C-alpha cells in the first residue's frame, strides 16, 4: 500500500474517532451545560431528609435547570443534611425561596426544586435557604397511611 493512501486512511480513522469522542461529550453527555454557566454562586440549605438525592443532580425552578447539587454533607450540629447548590449567576432568587427535594415521575431521579418567594432581597454567595422541604420517602408515606387507617379503625 502506498504511504500516502495509508496516511489518509489512518488520518480519517483518527479524525472519526476523535469526532465520536466529541459527539459523546457534547451531544450525548452534557459537557456543554456542565461549564456553560462558568459563573455560578453557591447557596446551601439544610434538609431533614434528602432521600436519594445525589451530587450533580439538577436544581430546577419551574422545570428549568438553573444549577446543580455541588455537595452533600451531614451536619453533626443540627443532625440533618447540608446540601450545597451551584446556581448560575443569571438566575437570582429571593431570600425567602422555598427549596424542596422532588422526584421526576414515580421512580425517576431526585432533584432540588426552587420556588421563588416574594422577598425584595436576593440570595447571595454563601447564603442559606431557610425554608426547605424534605424528600418524600415512600416507606414513611406508607407507614403514615397504615397508621391513619389503624386509627380510623379505632373509632369503631
Amino acid at each position, binding site marked *: *500500500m502506498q504511504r500516502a493512501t*495509508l*496516511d489518509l*486512511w*489512518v488520518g*480519517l*480513522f*483518527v479524525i*472519526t*474517532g*476523535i469526532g*465520536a*469522542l466529541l*459527539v*459523546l*461529550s457534547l*451531544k*450525548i*453527555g*452534557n*459537557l456543554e*451545560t*456542565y461549564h456553560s454557566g462558568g459563573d455560578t454562586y453557591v447557596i446551601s440549605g439544610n434538609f431533614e431528609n434528602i432521600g436519594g438525592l445525589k451530587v*450533580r443532580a*439538577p436544581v430546577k425552578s419551574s422545570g428549568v*435547570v438553573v444549577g446543580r447539587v455541588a455537595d452533600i454533607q451531614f451536619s453533626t450540629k443540627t443532625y440533618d443534611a447540608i446540601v450545597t447548590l451551584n446556581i448560575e449567576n443569571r438566575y437570582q432568587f429571593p431570600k425567602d425561596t422555598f427549596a424542596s427535594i422532588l422526584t421526576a*415521575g*414515580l*421512580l*425517576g*431521579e431526585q432533584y432540588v426544586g426552587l420556588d421563588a418567594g416574594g422577598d425584595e432581597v436576593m440570595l447571595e454567595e454563601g447564603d442559606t435557604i431557610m425554608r426547605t422541604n424534605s424528600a418524600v420517602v415512600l416507606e414513611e408515606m406508607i407507614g403514615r397511611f397504615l397508621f391513619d387507617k389503624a386509627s380510623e379503625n379505632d373509632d369503631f
Partner: protein
Amino acid sequence: MSKHIISAIQGVGHRTLEGIRRLGRATLYFLLVLWKSGTSLKRFGLVVRELYYFGVLSLIIIVVSGLFVGMVLGLQGYETLQKYGSETAVGTMVALSLVRELGPVVAALLFASSAGSAMTVEIGLMKATEQLAAMDMMAVDPVARVVAPRFWAGVISMPLLAAIFSVMGVFGGYLVAVVFIGVDDGSFWSQMQSNVDFRVDILNGFIKSCFFGIAVSAIAVFEGHDSLPTAEGVSVATTRTVVTSSLVILGLDFILTAFMFRGL
C-alpha cells in the same frame, strides 16, 4: 490411592507455579515493551502503519456491531420502559448502557478477537519464520521495531473504536426508538443529555477503554512473541490471546466499575 492424591495435588501445584511464572514473564515483557517504546515515538510512521492494520481495518466490524447493539437496546428498552409509561427514557437507557459498559467492553472484545489475534499471529509467524531472529542479528531490536509500534497502535485505536461504537449504538437506538417506533424526538435527546454526565459516564467509559486497549495489546504481543515457533504454537497462542484478553477485559471491567461508580 494416596499416590493418586499426592500426584493430583502436585498437578495443582505445578500448574499454579507455571501460571505465576507466566504472569511474571508477561509483566517483565510488558515493562520491556514500554522501555523500548522510544523508537515508536521517534519514528511515528511505524505506528501509523500499524494503526491502519489494527485500527482502520477494525472499523467495519465496530461500526456494524455498534449499530446493531444500539438497535437491539432501543427495541428492548422500549418494550420494557413503555410498561412504566416512561418510553422517552429509552434514549437515556441506550446511551448510559453504551457509554458506561457496552461501548468499551464489546468494542474491546471485538478488538481482541479481530485485531488482537491478528497481532499475535503476525508476531508469532515472524518468530516462527526466523524474521525476528534475523532482525536481531541485523542489530535491530525486534521489540522496539516490531512489537512496540503494534502495541501502541492497539493502545491508540481502542478508545477511538470504543467511542465510534458508542456513537453508532446511540444512532442505532435513535433509529429504532424515534424513526421506527415514534418516540418523541425532543424528549429522546433531552432526557439523554440531562442524564448522561460527562465526567461520571463518558470520561469513565473513555478511561475504561484506555485500560482495555493496554490490556488487549499487551496480551496480544506477549502471546505472539512467547509462542512456540511452529504453526501449532502460533495457533495455540492465538486462542490464548482471545481467551485471556476476553477474561481480562471482563475482570478489569468489574474492578474499574467498582472503583468508578461505587468509589471503593
